[in-house]
């Protein structure tokens, strides 16, 4: 069953169209990335899914239940780590986590062990009595994630979870997200860090101007929409390339042959075999890895941070 189903989701804000019919399906246990520049509609999509924003039209379901009519069920399945930090002037971190568990129907006595475990796992144990304003930016981000996990949701939504954190913490969080994924959580990640999506996600959808422009596994997308380069250096010139490499796009520069391919992993062994069987002596091979950024660029005509 799909953990999240979004169909033809539409939303306008006083005349400005934010979503123009978004369709997304996320399988249970999947690590799904929603990629797009600022203002593309990522946060609006999430906010509609979680009940913070009203949709104009379309369907949003969590494990097959409508997020509006069955909100009590669907919201219990979802934990949200929002992009914006929450502030609180009155209560310490452990109390805020217990409140958060309470909103989801978990009594303090039942939530206390999980709160302890999360404070420990996210390195916040020593700050348990601190107020949010006393935390560093990285700690605030970790607290935001602890809050999303306190009711042990099946689905975790991470809205730009590594925005503004240093490289060390970013890698630490990536490891943590992978662990959660391995524990069976379905994760919906929005990001505009290409590396993050490539490294973590099973599947990504690229959203631009309120519409999903493509989706698939990072590998598929890179293979489908972008070209990669394979450069083969021969130890000596070889005549008759045209007759053996007619199925490939390449440029021949004497002992250097450069191939453009959408499926470098599939094509490389074939090219090597053809050349070897034809008697060419391969000295070395170089590949230029394409990335989701190229895919994004090709599809939208602009960089992801624009």
């Amino acid at each position, binding site marked *: 069953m799909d953990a999240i189903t979004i169909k033809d989701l539409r939303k306008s804000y006083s005349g400005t169209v934010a979503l123009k019919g978004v369709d997304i399906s996320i399988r249970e246990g999947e690590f799904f990335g929603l990629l797009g520049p600022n203002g593309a509609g990522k946060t609006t999509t999430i906010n509609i899914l979680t009940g913070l924003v009203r949709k104009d039209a379309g369907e949003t379901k969590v494990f097959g239940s409508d997020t509006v009519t069955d909100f009590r069920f669907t919201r219990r399945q979802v934990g949200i780590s929002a992009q*914006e930090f929450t502030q609180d*002037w009155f209560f310490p971190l452990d109390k805020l986590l217990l409140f958060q568990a309470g*909103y989801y129907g978990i009594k303090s006595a039942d939530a206390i062990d999980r709160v302890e475990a999360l404070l420990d796992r996210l390195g916040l144990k020593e700050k348990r009595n601190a107020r949010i304003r006393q935390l560093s930016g990285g700690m605030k981000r970790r607290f935001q994630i602890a809050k999303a996990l306190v009711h042990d949701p099946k689905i975790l939504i991470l809205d730009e979870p590594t925005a503004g954190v240093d490289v060390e913490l970013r890698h630490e969080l990536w490891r943590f997200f992978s662990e959660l994924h391995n524990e069976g959580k379905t994760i919906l990640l929005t990001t505009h860090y290409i590396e993050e999506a490539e490294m973590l996600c099973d599947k990504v959808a690229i959203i631009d101007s309120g519409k999903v422009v493509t989706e698939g596994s990072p590998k598929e997308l890179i293979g489908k929409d972008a070209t990669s380069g394979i450069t083969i250096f021969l130890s000596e010139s070889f005549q008759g390339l045209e007759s053996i490499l007619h199925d490939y796009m390449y440029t021949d520069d004497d002992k250097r042959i450069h191939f453009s391919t959408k499926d470098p992993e599939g094509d490389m062994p074939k090219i090597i075999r053809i050349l070897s069987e034809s008697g060419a002596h391969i000295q070395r091979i170089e590949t230029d890895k394409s990335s989701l950024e190229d895919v994004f660029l090709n599809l939208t005509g602009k960089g992801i941070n624009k």
Partner: protein
Amino acid sequence: MNWVGFKTLTFREVGRFFSVWRQTIVPGLISSILYILIFGFTLEKRIDNIDGIPYTLFILPGLIMMNALTNATSNSSSSMLQMKLLGQLPDILQAPLSSFEISMAYIIGGMVRGTINGILIMVVGILIGGMTVENPFQTIAFIFIVSWAFSSIGLLLGQLSESWDQLATMQNFILTPLSFLGGIFYSIKMLPEWAQLLSMFNPIYYMINGLRYTILGISDSDPLYSFLIASLMTLIFTIASIKVMENGKKIKQ
């Protein structure tokens, strides 16, 4: 009904004002003690009794009511606005809580603060002002209903405000004048006829006189009207604030 969620949010709302009791409970007590001392020791000698009641005692029910209703209003309004401005509201709106549960938790928070403040000032009146309460049960019940009504008004103000300035404007230009013109310090019989008529349209006039009746046994208005108007306000503003929460105006996008 998400009882645990509802209880948690209610507990949070009540705990919030208790955690800053110096700001939420003490000021009303200090100002009431000052009123009693200043009027008791100085002005009372120069002001005639009203309906046979010494002036300090006459104003005490009004002070109790003003404290109860301003505390009730400011608790729910400031908590709602604060949650909006500090980005805490999504935590509650994205949780499995209904608009009814969320609204009632805020209203109970303000109602508890209003009732506690009202009762504490009543105790101060008894201890320092020498006040005797004719009907303690009715008095507490009336403070409770009015606190509920004004807490729901406060929630509505908090929901509709987008800044502290807007909220302060509504409180300073509507609530405070209506409180003072509701007859805390005077009987409307002392006013010219047109002002008496105008007072009839001020709901706080009925609140103050209702409490004056349960405490002192005197009232400018029919006590039944006071009870009915307080109950009606409670009903109307509770429903209105739940509807606004449901509708999401200025809360959800």
